């Protein structure tokens, strides 16, 4: 009887270990992936912010009376760059604020591009065209980075909430499900309204 009891305890322990073994590596990896993906998103937003002063100066050269629009972009950029986000500790509210500021910058940029359409000399300026293509490229990189971040958050959340890795999490890691990185309302309308550049 002693033997049966210890064997069954051993068997039960092994079973639990086997199950909790699932996720011992994949959960921390997924956590790191989310952090890396978040950095990538913030890097691309920063890249966009870095392109803007040059763009504003180029537009100013041809359209100096469009003060309101130009100032709008400068202010929106200042607000967006003043917000930093810590990938590992961001609360949903912080993420929402960050995305909102970026969304407002997207809208201000969109308005600037619409205004620029009215100035043929500006549109023909090589510098402006290069900047425009760089900003479009960066906007696409932002979209790609954000899609990947959303994917990595989903993968992490799946590991943490779905059996058997959820068991490992509750035994060893105690990690919380992460909030999904949603587009702010401002960003959504900016994306929908983006003027199509036809050549």
């Amino acid at each position, binding site marked *: 009887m002693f033997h049966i009891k210890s064997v069954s305890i051993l068997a039960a322990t092994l079973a639990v270990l086997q199950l909790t073994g699932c996720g011992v590596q994949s959960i921390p990896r997924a956590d790191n992936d989310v952090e890396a993906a978040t950095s990538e998103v913030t890097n691309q937003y920063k890249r966009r912010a870095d392109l803007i002063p040059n763009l504003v100066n180029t537009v100013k050269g041809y359209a100096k009376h469009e003060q309101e629009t130009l100032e709008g972009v400068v202010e929106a950029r200042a607000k967006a760059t003043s917000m930093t986000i810590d990938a590992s500790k961001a609360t949903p509210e912080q993420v929402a604020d960050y995305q909102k500021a970026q969304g407002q910058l997207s809208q201000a940029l969109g308005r600037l591009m619409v205004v620029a359409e009215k100035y043929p000399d500006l549109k023909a300026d090589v510098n402006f*065209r290069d900047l425009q293509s*760089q900003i479009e490229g960066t906007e*696409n990189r932002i*979209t790609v*980075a954000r899609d990947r971040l959303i994917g990595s958050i989903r993968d992490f959340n799946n590991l943490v909430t779905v059996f058997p890795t959820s068991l490992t999490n509750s035994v060893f890691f105690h990690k919380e499900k992460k909030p999904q990185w949603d587009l702010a309302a401002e960003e959504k309308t900016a994306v929908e309204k983006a003027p199509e550049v036809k*050549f």
Partner: protein
Amino acid sequence: MLALFFPLLLSWSFAAEFTVPALTGPVVDAAGILSARTRETLATFLQQHRAQGGAQIQVVSLPSLEGLSIEEASIKIADQWQIGQAKEDRGVILVVAYADRRVRIEVGKGLEGDLTDARSSRIVREVIIPRIRSGDLDRAIVDGVLAITHYADPNIETSGAVSSGSQRRSVRGLSGWKLLIFWVLIFLFFVGPGRRFGWLFLLAAMSGGGRHRGGGSFGGGGWSGGGGGFNGGGSSGSW
């Protein structure tokens, strides 16, 4: 009951989902818009270019974007095919959605410094789209690819490497005295007394040229992505 399902059935039948075509070679003409000669010579060129240490350049034509933007379709293709090498990420994909009138150059991570967004944009605007507008799609793709190699691999010699289906400019890249000698030979072999041997000359020139360029397989070699990564850099255009 059927009324509930009907809209669902409709959406199933009308909105096909975008699928990434199979990666069969350097030129995946899923839309069937390129001439056979362009497909073959371009595929050979791209194989050789990669074999010589150049970037892995991919050309793909799509029959339809199925409602996606060309950027969305392009990154799906890039993520699945993984053109370029795992660490260097020197891959680039030229995507043409002809029926949707859109084109995109999708640039891999490792090429973003050489093939910047601004340069990709120039290639799309100044090389590819004007040629599409004037009706020469083969030329648009070939010259687009050559322009890409000009930025991505300036050290690799590509003159005379590719000819397209259009007869007018079937020999490119020969300059100066080489061009003069070429025309003299053409005259001698095709117009003058040596007419009979014209085709022999052509055959010799073709095989000789092949041997010169490293003697690799003529487009028959294997082709697959090397694990290259993409971040969404590049440029799109429409006409």
